[in-house]
């Protein structure tokens, strides 16, 4: 899992970090937070996309090998949230790259983030099965 902060207020970021603490422990599902897009299956983005982070989001997405899933965490990443009308905000992550799972909330609760990640794992499995079928 690769976590990127597109323009978040850090509220959701801290909740994402919370998921890795002993209380929530996302690693019990085998998921670890990495900094390397080449080794990531999931791109987890917090905050809406602005004109400066747009290219970074696109690049990170393009550097991840298929199959891959994108999770938008927090209402800003889903739709742009309260910043939607700002002159520099493009809107939710889905204005730039395809998003598979939306986790709303301000800030998103660790429980709902874990729920979103689990849903993303299922979508990832489906995509992998489809890719293997395609290859045959």
């Amino acid at each position: 899992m690769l976590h990127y902060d597109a323009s978040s207020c850090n509220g959701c970021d801290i909740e994402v970090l919370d998921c890795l603490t002993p209380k929530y422990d996302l690693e019990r599902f085998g998921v670890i937070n990495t900094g390397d897009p080449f080794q990531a299956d999931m791109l987890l983005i917090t905050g809406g996309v602005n004109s400066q982070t747009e290219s970074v989001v696109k690049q990170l997405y393009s550097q991840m090998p298929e199959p891959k899933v994108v999770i938008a965490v927090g209402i800003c990443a889903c739709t742009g949230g309260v910043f939607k009308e700002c002159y520099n905000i493009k809107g939710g992550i889905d204005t730039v790259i395809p998003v598979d799972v939306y986790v709303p909330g301000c800030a998103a609760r660790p429980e709902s983030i874990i729920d979103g990640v689990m849903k993303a794992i299922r979508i990832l499995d489906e995509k992998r099965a489809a890719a293997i079928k395609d290859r045959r």
Partner: protein
Amino acid sequence: MMRAGLVIAYILLAPVLGAFLDGLDRVVSARMQRRKGPSVLQPFYDLGKLFSKQLLAVNNVQLLLNLSYLVILMIAGSLLFAGADLLMILFILSTADMFLIMSASSDSSPYANMGAGREMIQVMAYEPLTLLLAVGFYLATGSFDVSVIMQQPKSAVFLMPGLLFGFMFVAAIKFRKSPFDLSTSHHAHQEMVMGITTEMSGANLAIINLGEYYEMVLMLGLFFLFFANKNWQSWIVAAVLCLVIFLLETLWDNVSARLKWKKVLYGCWTVTFVAGGVNLLILMLTH
């Protein structure tokens, strides 16, 4: 016949044992941090996943270099389990590492290049002790041959406790454990993305992981040599002690922070020359 069986067993089972130990390491680490941790079989799932991913090759040569790393490690391990020359095994082990360094240097990522540089420093840090280790076994048993070392009436550890301590110290480099995980780490926390493996993905990364599992079993095989003698009972004790040493490395990984390269280099050399050197000196004077 038995040697051929051991070599085949090593080639087939080392990745399984290595992945299982990696899973055990992750669970034990998690428990030390009061977390639940993943399933013990997680590394197997990860390997399967990596082989099913799209291959994003950054250049044409990296896959070849990674495969060379894997194959040369398999050769080194096979020689150990065939009871061949210890010096040869250690030299081939270093050669394998050279391929890893070349592979990391072949891409354009600054993180991978920095990882390659740090890997070279790590090689410099652990290499003196591995050489002293071979000399120590020669002085203690009269041969570099693993098959002869295994047939001693008394375990080598009684003559080489200093070298065992030194080897446990530098083995953290080979197991990629804190405080010596400068060039890359099994864990996600790494201050330069993933170091040598930054630009490796899918099957490319899976090959490196497989190589590390072969290396892990090879290192534990070298620890095994310290405790095993001609009685078969000692082999069971040696296997248990190898597991204990592995878990001690996990403990050390969890209680220490990553060091800077100078401290790693000087720390390893100091331990090598004090623990290894004094042990060797006593062996030379008494044998």
